[in-house]
């Protein structure tokens, strides 16, 4: 059986909490701690930031996270792996080295993994299959190309592990691959050992959203109670050489690890469970077996895999102009009727005073907003906020929306108050595919 490889999650998304990661590195006796911080949304934001400042584009929490984590990780002999480089791994790695020097961590080896940025490989003729259009067609419609990143896999990280890096900073590595790479390195799994790569991918998938397997994104009072969610612990996997694992968390932390939390996460963002495509393998989770193995311990086994896909998925980002959102509230008797009238006024004036012909969304928050396009559930309510939203490449139209909603305070229905509005730069993303030989990754180890 051997000694299990202990791997923990320090972050499951770009804005995840820090204190559970500090707790894990202090008490977890971890071989490796992974910060998974890139999604379609955050990568788009990274490109947006890098457009404005060539030294930006990586995760804004990298410095505060590493300031707290790196001294402890060195003390406990825990390797740190992250994709916090997002749209600029080079700048992120250099910032990490500078921070390590500031912290007195001389000799810390920081690997920078590059090559996921494939902007130069994308041309006007590149197809965007899900959209049914080409890159050139999207650009011609007023959304210029901003950048493109391929999902790279565990093999891109292996040279950094073999070089003995203490910290590995990358960009668009596929989420489970961040976890699979140290497992491959620890157990010597080959790049064509599809069964073990599938099993390790299942473990990585369970860990990649941090608290989502330990009681976060799960609690529903009265139906699915979770204790002490304010201090939910982040997960640890004790991985065996065959790729099976126990998912658990530290004692004296909030949350829970149960069959239910693990089931929900096993299928999270999965389409066909028998064919989960990653850069490393086509994993098959349909054969996975789950079993309770003590308090807050669930054993996972049986996931397998088949040969990896020939093509890599690419997220292509385009300049989407701006998103304008504005709100005003109505309360007390008749709130819904007054809110509905307010929305009608904004729609009328955006169309006929400002000539806006695009999609304008009006939500009545408190009556039906998030599910508003799916179901009409008429409800009498005493507290309604009207929200108006549009996307445009015309800054003046964006400002006009905010003005129209704010002007309701005097010109609109009775009792409107609490205006809020903001205009946010927007990047839209679509998927493309590139053959593997178009994507070359490289690793450079920097020393603090």
């Amino acid at each position, binding site marked *: 059986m051997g000694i299990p490889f202990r791997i923990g999650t320090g972050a499951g998304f770009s804005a995840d909490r820090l204190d559970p990661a500090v707790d894990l590195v202090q008490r977890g006796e971890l071989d490796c701690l992974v910060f998974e911080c890139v999604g*379609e949304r955050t990568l*788009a934001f990274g490109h947006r930031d890098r457009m404005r400042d060539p030294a930006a584009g990586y995760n804004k929490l990298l410095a505060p996270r590493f300031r707290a984590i790196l001294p402890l990780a060195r003390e406990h002999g825990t390797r740190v792996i992250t994709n916090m480089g997002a749209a600029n791994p080079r700048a992120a790695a250099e910032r990490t080295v500078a921070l390590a020097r500031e912290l007195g961590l001389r000799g810390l080896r920081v690997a920078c993994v590059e090559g996921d940025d494939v902007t130069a490989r994308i041309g006007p003729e590149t197809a965007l299959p899900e959209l049914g259009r080409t890159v050139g067609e999207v650009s011609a419609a007023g959304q210029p190309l901003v950048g493109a990143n391929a999902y790279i896999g565990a093999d891109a990280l292996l040279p950094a592990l073999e070089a003995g890096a203490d910290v590995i900073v990358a960009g668009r590595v596929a989420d489970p691959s961040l976890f699979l790479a140290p497992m491959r390195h620890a157990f010597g799994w080959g790049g064509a050992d599809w069964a073990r790569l599938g099993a390790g991918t299942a473990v990585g998938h369970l860990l990649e959203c941090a608290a989502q397997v330990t009681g976060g994104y799960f609690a529903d009072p009265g139906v*699915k109670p979770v204790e002490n969610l304010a201090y939910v612990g982040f997960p640890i996997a004790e991985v065996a050489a065959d790729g099976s694992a126990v998912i658990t968390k530290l004692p004296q932390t909030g949350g829970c690890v149960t069959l239910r939390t693990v089931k929900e996460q096993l299928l999270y963002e*999965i389409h066909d469970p028998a064919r989960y495509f990653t850069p490393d393998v086509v994993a098959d989770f349909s054969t996975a077996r789950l079993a309770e193995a003590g308090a807050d311990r669930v054993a996972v086994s049986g996931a397998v895999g088949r040969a990896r896909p020939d093509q890599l998925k690419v997220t292509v980002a385009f300049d989407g102009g701006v998103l304008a959102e504005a709100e005003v509230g109505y309360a007390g008797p008749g709130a819904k009727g007054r809110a509905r009238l307010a929305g009608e006024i904004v729609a009328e004036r955006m169309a006929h005073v400002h000539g806006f012909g695009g999609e304008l969304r009006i939500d009545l928050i408190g009556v039906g907003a998030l599910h508003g396009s*799916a179901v009409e559930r008429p409800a009498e309510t005493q507290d309604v906020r009207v929200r108006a939203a549009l*996307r445009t490449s015309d800054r003046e139209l964006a400002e006009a929306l905010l003005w129209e909603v704010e002007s309701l305070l005097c010109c609109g229905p009775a009792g409107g108050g609490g205006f809020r509005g903001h205009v946010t730069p927007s990047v839209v993303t679509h998927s493309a595919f590139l053959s593997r030989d178009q994507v070359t990754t490289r690793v450079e180890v920097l020393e603090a």
Partner: protein
Amino acid sequence: MSASTGPDPAAAARRRVPLREIAHARAGDKGNISSVAVFAFEPRHYAALKAQLTPERLRAEFGGVLRGTITRYELDGLHGLNFVMTEALEGGVNSSLNLDSHGKSWSFLLLGLEVEVEP
């Protein structure tokens, strides 16, 4: 009791419950594709989910937002159903005008449905 006299006792014994009472669910997104996995709390309720929670029903109930294909994967070992719904996120996380641009709350859209279960 003959079939022609009185209500069918089996039907009378069945009760309609909100799905949230017998199942839990989680929603995820990739591009403009939403996936929602629904699991029976108790294995004995899985058959009712399988029989009543069909792609056709979701389309009938939520056709306004589920504009593409709906594929259902059955995970009998986990007592779960995974629904994969294309064109279901009003453009996807970076394009949608919905406040919930990920469709994170789609799980509770489904859990608001009613199903018939044996007592």
